[in-house]
């Protein structure tokens, strides 16, 4: 874990606890903020005004949404598998929250520095597929089942090019730890060195969080609600929460792997190495937050701009286009780097 300790007067608080607390709160809040942001930005894109009634500029809208969901009736279908039906929404939430532990929010601002952080993230993402599959299966309805299976097949199909794109990042960094990956981008962001990998990873991040254009498993015209048709009240709220957290996590991973994490572009050239710790911390966290907000905006922007794919198009894109492309990208980068060293 992060060995640094913050000393304020008589208190000695370990930094990892601070980062963990702040990180978790920001993850949970991000879902709320993103709900509001999505509706507002969607409105602006569609040339209308979004929610502006609840609180100033509609800023308390997420609170109203949460209260509404909490106070609704929790309808569990009979003949289903009640325990699985109850467990299934918990899994995406838990796996989304688990990823806060390895992400560096600034220089030295991380919870823990596992030396296999990338593998940990991929494992946690793979566990998220369980939630979707169990949800589809435990609701005793054919549409839910089909939606759940389709969502699961889509998510696992896009984990492969994502894994290969991340592998091409590891070639350049030489370490599986996210802290090292973030550190190594102080001069050149990985996007400049490996643009194809960045594009592939961005597309896969869209697919993993079931966002448009890959959201047919939950689009209303397709399968009603897909795997969360039979869920109501807070269980549906948890799927909702998990989806927006996945948008947030997707943006965080894109910035960490490819867009320099907390570094400004070409930061080595003008950032002094002995900058005040507090100033550097604030600078890092601000840059990081700005980048993540930009990518969340891109997620929302794409949703309201591009029509969604059909299912066979989704599968074809994942297997026939992205996977060979990511493998060849990996091989080319490995060869070039090996023979120029």
């Amino acid at each position, binding site marked *: *874990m992060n060995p640094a300790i913050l000393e304020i007067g008589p208190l000695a608080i370990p930094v990892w*606890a601070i980062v*963990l607390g702040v990180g*978790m709160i920001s993850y949970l809040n991000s879902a709320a903020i993103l709900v509001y942001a999505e509706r507002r930005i969607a409105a602006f894109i569609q040339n209308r005004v979004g929610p502006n009634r609840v609180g100033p500029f509609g800023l308390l809208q997420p609170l109203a949404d949460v209260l509404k969901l909490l*106070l*609704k*009736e*929790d*309808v*569990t*279908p*009979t*003949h289903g598998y009640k325990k699985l039906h*109850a467990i299934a*929404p*918990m899994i995406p*939430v838990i796996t989304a*929250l688990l990823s806060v*532990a390895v992400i560096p929010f600034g220089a030295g601002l991380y919870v*823990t*520095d*596992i*030396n296999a952080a*990338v*593998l*940990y993230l991929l494992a946690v993402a793979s566990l998220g597929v369980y939630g979707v599959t169990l949800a589809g299966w435990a*609701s*005793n*309805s*054919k549409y839910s*089942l089909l939606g759940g*299976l389709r969502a699961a*097949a889509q998510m*696992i*199909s896009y984990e*492969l090019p994502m*894994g*290969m794109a991340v*592998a091409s990042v*590891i*070639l350049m960094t*030489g370490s599986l730890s996210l802290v090292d990956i973030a550190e190594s981008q102080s001069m050149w962001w990985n996007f400049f060195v490996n643009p194809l990998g960045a594009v592939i990873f961005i597309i896969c991040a869209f697919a993993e969080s079931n966002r448009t254009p890959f959201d047919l498993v939950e689009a209303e015209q397709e399968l*009603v*609600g897909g795997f969360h048709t*039979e869920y109501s009240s*807070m*269980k549906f*709220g*948890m799927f909702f*929460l998990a989806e927006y957290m996945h948008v947030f996590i997707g943006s965080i991973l894109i910035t960490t792997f490819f867009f320099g994490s907390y570094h400004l572009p070409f930061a080595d050239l003008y950032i002094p190495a002995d900058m005040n710790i507090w100033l550097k911390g604030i600078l890092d966290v601000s840059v990081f937050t700005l980048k993540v907000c930009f990518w969340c905006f891109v997620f929302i922007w794409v949703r309201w701009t591009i029509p969604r794919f059909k299912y*066979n198009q989704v*599968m*074809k894109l994942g*297997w*026939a286009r992205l996977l*060979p492309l990511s*493998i060849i990208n990996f*091989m080319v980068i*490995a060869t070039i780097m*090996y023979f120029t060293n």
Partner: protein
Amino acid sequence: MLDSYFPILILAGIAIVLALLLMTLSRILGPYRPNKHKLNPYESGMDPVGEARERYSISFYLVAMEFIVFDLEVVFIYPWAVRYLDLGLGTFISMMVFITILLIGLLYTLKKGTLDWDLKTNKI
């Protein structure tokens, strides 16, 4: 090394507690008035036709099978990728041969249409 996983344990505990809290909160705060129509599975307002466990396409099974093969390839690539600059040329070529073999397998699979979801275009 193991103490670097300790915060993850704490985080997992907090996450599980949070999820359980959310679940029970809705049960406590919301009304509970089940009736027959609410408890039926949703089918655009009609009574459900047929069983819920209908047979589904075998392509799901094929996708899962292919996923296992290529995911294991990715897992094998990770340890090599971390230190490949220090290893010799022979290891590099071995790894490239490994990836090429799997790439040929992927090419065969794609050309044969096993991952096509239009079942009419069965080229086998």
